[in-house]
């Protein structure tokens, strides 16, 4: 394309530099200088708003509206338990484990429109989101994935091509243990009876009749949950998946079995 040159009547003469002074002569002071007055960026005292921001846990938000959109388009199958792997394969969410992402959180953006019966497993969920999913007859669970297992979960094929055995999922750190053992957050380490109580409580709070999932035809699928040390649904820790020969190798040594089943 044509390069804009400073010649001719329009762009010539003062060449957009103004009239005399520091502006025209190119000698303006540094950015932020206010003519000697204490500049704004020095007058305001320091406070640790962003301190440790690179160590904070981040969770990619997943709104109910987006989930409904994915289900309607057929990208996510509601007849199977919905996991982070399913969501990543459907390109519904993009998780970056290297950027301190610890998973996905459910956000209540499309709460009024949502109407799908699903078994979802996320890392964090807000109360309204849990209530909406249970109102439609679904099941929510919150579970913890440490960064290594999260990477394996998001990109399983690349991991299998490495030829390493599947590691066991680590347990949550101290600050998160409380969150995942609480039935109100539907944590995976919480008591199942307390979870049932919490479901009733939510139904009373939000004023809907809790649908009985035991009488549901998909009850078996809805109640499938992962073991705390398991990363994938069908595979156990310690197994090696061979993509080329389409085979799974399981360890037979006693010590290995003991280690992986702890």
């Amino acid at each position, binding site marked *: 394309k044509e390069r804009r040159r400073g010649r001719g009547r329009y762009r010539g003469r003062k060449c957009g530099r103004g009239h005399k002074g520091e502006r025209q002569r190119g000698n303006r002071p540094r950015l932020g200088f206010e003519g000697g007055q204490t500049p704004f960026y020095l007058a305001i005292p320091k406070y640790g708003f962003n301190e440790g921001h690179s160590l904070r846990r981040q969770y990619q938000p997943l709104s109910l509206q987006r989930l409904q959109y994915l289900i309607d388009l057929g990208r996510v199958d509601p007849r199977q338990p919905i996991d982070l792997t399913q969501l990543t394969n459907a390109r519904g969410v993009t998780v970056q484990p290297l950027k301190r992402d610890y998973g996905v959180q459910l956000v*209540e953006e499309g*709460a*009024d429109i949502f109407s799908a019966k699903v078994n979802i497993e996320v890392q964090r969920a807000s109360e*309204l989101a849990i*209530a*909406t999913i249970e*109102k439609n007859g679904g099941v929510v669970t919150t579970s913890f994935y440490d960064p290594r297992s999260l990477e394996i979960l998001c990109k399983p094929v690349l991991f299998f091509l490495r030829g390493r055995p599947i590691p066991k999922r680590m347990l949550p750190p101290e600050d998160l243990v409380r969150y995942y053992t609480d039935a109100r957050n539907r944590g995976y380490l919480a008591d199942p009876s307390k979870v049932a109580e919490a479901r009733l409580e939510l139904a009373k*709070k*939000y*004023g809907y009749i809790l649908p009985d999932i035991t009488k549901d035809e998909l009850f078996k699928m809805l109640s499938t949950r992962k073991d705390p040390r398991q990363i994938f649904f069908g595979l156990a820790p310690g197994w090696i998946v061979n993509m080329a020969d389409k085979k799974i190798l399981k360890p037979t040594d006693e010590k290995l079995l003991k280690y992986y089943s702890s």
Partner: protein
Amino acid sequence: GPGGQHVNKVNTKAEVRFHLASADWIPEAAREKMASMHRNKINRAGELIVNSEESRYQMRNLAICLEKIRTMVTEATEKPKVVSKETTQKLIERVEKMNRERLRQKKIHSNIKQSRKADFD
């Protein structure tokens, strides 16, 4: 509603109404008290109306309505505080003791001030 700002287009107001006189899940006394306390919220047909439009989600508005009804019922069922005899006696004793102490201190102060007077030589 008609177009304009987002506020005018999104309608998530939740309204709960129930016939107060025939609600048998509230005791009689509480029912009458509620009828008198929230007279302005009862319509001609005798229905108590509670609405909320504070949140963007209808479910949350519904939850807020139910909370409001719960607080109404608890307020109507609470009994007036009965102060026992011992407590009233204790309070009266406390007041008397305070007055006695005050007068005693006043007398002491008065003696001090009088002792400073050089009246007779």
